[in-house]
């Protein structure tokens, strides 16, 4: 098992090297001069030149690349030009924020979507099926910033149930000591239940926004793959041997239907993690997506490179987890690799 994980990680190295090269070249090819941007609009030509020299941008591309990779090897992602902060530290702070939001959104979505999909598949044509269709269509056709704004309008502005959409924690609470970076977990570890409630109430609206959006692919995939499995011969055998409907649906049909659902889940997760910039903007969430977009707009190389590299690593790890899960669910995968 460990050997397999090791092997899979080895296979990921070439693609990571590719990512490093491509992001390096791509950020250099972007229009805009970071030195000029950094120096500000009032700077003289000499000042810009000086900054360029200081940043090493006057060196040949190949030398810049080697310097960059050398830094990477030492865990140094460089400094952001706009904030002056080291990129590694920024990502370390912001990635858990995004991950916590995405994970919670996905959990909410799974908890609703999978039972909905299963019920829709076991009763095709019934009201559950129609409900499933309407919810998923609505969820996927409303843009996330719109659902986000509606939720803020209703629950914060009108009803006043939720706190102001201003980040991860109410200003009156201090962040818990970092253990996992997930405020929900860290506050519990610190036994700070007030802060936990605050963190949770800040999370609910953005997480719901994400959940509504990701409901559709998961519920649809669950329904489709359940329908296929329910029509299969081993389900007929199970029914012909008098097993209870619960056993037939859960043990026989659902476990088999899980495989495509897990694939969809992993795709949705990795998509949301980097791409929910709009949600992060609406809720002033200090996530990694908005960080990367801001850096990109201001031609700030280092954060963009750091972001892409982090996402690549995340994808590799995620795929590894999915493969292991596959092996747990389906014994055939263990043999076929």
């Amino acid at each position, binding site marked *: 098992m460990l050997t397999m994980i090791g092997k899979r990680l080895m296979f990921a190295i070439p693609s990571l090297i590719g990512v490093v090269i491509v992001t390096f070249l791509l950020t250099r090819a972007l229009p805009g001069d970071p030195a000029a941007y950094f120096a500000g609009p009032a700077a003289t030509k000499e000042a810009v030149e000086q900054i360029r020299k200081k940043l090493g941008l006057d060196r040949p591309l190949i030398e810049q690349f080697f310097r960059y990779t050398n830094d990477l090897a030492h865990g140094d992602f460089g400094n952001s030009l706009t904030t002056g902060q080291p990129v590694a530290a920024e990502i370390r702070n912001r990635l858990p924020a995004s991950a916590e939001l995405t994970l919670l959104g996905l959990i909410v979505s799974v908890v609703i979507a999978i039972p909905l999909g299963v019920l829709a598949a076991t009763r095709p044509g019934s009201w559950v099926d129609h409900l499933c269709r309407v919810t998923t269509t609505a969820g996927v056709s409303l843009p996330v910033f719109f659902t986000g704004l509606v939720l803020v309008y209703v629950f914060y502005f009108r009803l006043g149930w939720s706190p102001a959409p201003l980040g991860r924690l109410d200003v009156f609470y201090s962040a818990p000591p970092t253990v996992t970076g997930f405020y929900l977990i860290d506050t519990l570890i610190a036994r700070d239940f007030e802060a936990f409630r605050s963190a949770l109430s800040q999370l609910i609206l953005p997480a719901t926004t994400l959940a509504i959006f990701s409901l559709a692919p998961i519920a649809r995939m669950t329904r489709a793959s359940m329908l296929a499995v329910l029509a299969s011969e081993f389900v007929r055998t199970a029914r012909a*041997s008098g097993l209870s409907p619960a056993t037939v649906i859960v043990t026989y049909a659902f476990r088999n239907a899980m495989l495509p659902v897990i694939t969809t889940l992993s795709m949705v997760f990795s998509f949301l993690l980097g791409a929910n910039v709009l949600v992060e903007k609406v809720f002033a969430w200090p996530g990694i997506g908005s960080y990367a977009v801001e850096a990109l707009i201001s031609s700030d190389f280092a954060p963009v490179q750091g972001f892409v590299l982090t996402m690549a690593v995340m994808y590799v790890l995620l795929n590894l987890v999915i493969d292991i899960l596959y092996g747990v669910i389906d014994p055939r995968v263990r043999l076929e690799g």
Partner: protein
Amino acid sequence: MTAQPLLDVQDLTVEFTTRRGIVQAVQHVNISVAKGETLAIVGESGSGKSVTSYAVMRILDRAGKIAEGSVMFSGIDVKAATEDQMRDLRGREVSMIFQNPRAALNPIRKVGDQIEDVLRTHVQQAQVADHGEKAIEALEQVKIARPRERYHAYPFELSGGMCQRVVIALALACNPQLLIADEPTTGLDVTTQKAVMDLIVELTKRRAMSTILITHDLGLAAAYCDRVVVMEKGRVVETAKAADIFANPQHPYTKKLMRATPRLGVSLRDLLPEEETVSFASPRVRGEADAQSAAGEGGSPSTVLAESPPHPDPLPASGEREKGKPLLLIEKLVKEYPRQGATATLGKLFGRKPPVEPDVFRAVDGISFSIGHGESVGLVGESGCGKSTTSMMVMRLLDQTSGLIQFDGEDIGGIQPAAFARLPQRSRIQMVFQDPTDSLNPRFTAARAIADPIMQLGDIKGRDALRARCEELATMVGLPHNLLDRFPHQLSGGQKARVGIARAIALHPKLVILDEPTAALDVSVQAVVLNLLQDLKARLGMSYLFVSHDLNVVRLLCDRVIVMRTGRIVEEGSSEKVLSDPQDDYTKELLTAIPHPPLPVH
């Protein structure tokens, strides 16, 4: 028979609601099964035999329902029973064995757990403690070697025959009174079929169970059943004792089925119904095709025609036909597969069992044979004997490990499989596949499918010329021209088989490899297709390599037979000689495993 039958089906009508309205799959069927009796329901696909059994267990699809009639099972009205009552009945009182055992088992659950699921559902709480032992006992009953180990096996780790034994264990775990076996041996090798059927009969006899055997194989029905019910298009056309029905079939459909079943002592033509025999070889169709082939399709077809008899029966012997060089010469052909590939390494990481097999597996182990011009050779053996691997190597779909493949005087063994597809020799070897449905592109019309090889390799250009050639080919294979624009799902099995054959002969091949071309077809359709193949061979002067596990079919179509086992040739000779006087023990075993009707039929 006792006064009160165990199962009594009266006037049963099953309806399916489809997009085109209501379809009656079963109409006014009366069937009764006495205690301890073995009943066969025989019919071709679409005759409603499976639907009848699903209705008895009430496991019809959502769209289907019992519209009329009654089903009484030992005093319980199945039509009126609640779902809970039915669930109690299923598995404990009535259970079922399905076709395609591998698909009938949950692929990701251990077989032992699956048997336990059934036991846990039906056996009283008091005995709950030893379900594991009971499941192992059930596996023991069906004669699975090392049942304790197999308990932890997944279906994909077991062979087809072994999976069917597990399904039988599953069905018999709770000692039901009635066992419904729905084509339990279709897709299994003859020797496995015999073992499985013998096992079912032994177990049901010992427990005094009643059995319904649903099959399309009259021979099987006759060999194992007391009574036979013949169904056609949703109706019962004849019910009789097994011995009587063969001696004295009453209904024309029964007679037709019986005629179409390949068996000893008949020729291909005998398989066809009397009236069709005439039309099939009608001089009109025949003359047309001959005229066009003589008109300018290259010289060879007409020359072969001249020496073939007008009504070609299976050729008696092959000796005199082998003049000059053989068309296909195979010498010391070997194909090895590595056992320890990347996949096996990964498997080892997860698996618990140490590998016991050697590093390479010889699928084909040094075989040599030849096929003459215009000769048809049968390659017979059970699954895994290497017959398909051999045909793939001849087709250059696979690269051989070593050995010589010479086709028409040229060594094609050295050609890379990928390169072969573009060479002119490629058009001289064609193939007809086992599954007529899966081997056609679902998005191609029949005409497009037939034209495909011509467009790839042929020299006919232009829409109209292609169309004309397609129609010509359709005429040759007896496919009505108005079907040419249909898609595969709009054609019947026999029609799809004809499209596959037309596609194979489109480029005037010299050798056609037939990979079980009739295995998926009903017997009456099989009879027609076999006759068609025989006619085409005589008309176009092709050679056939007929890959099959059905010895009766091979005997009808082939001049010579090669029997393979575990990659080696165990026996070779003229069809009549090998099949009437087998020398090798394995051939004898294969022959005795075929179920025979008790009496010859005429």
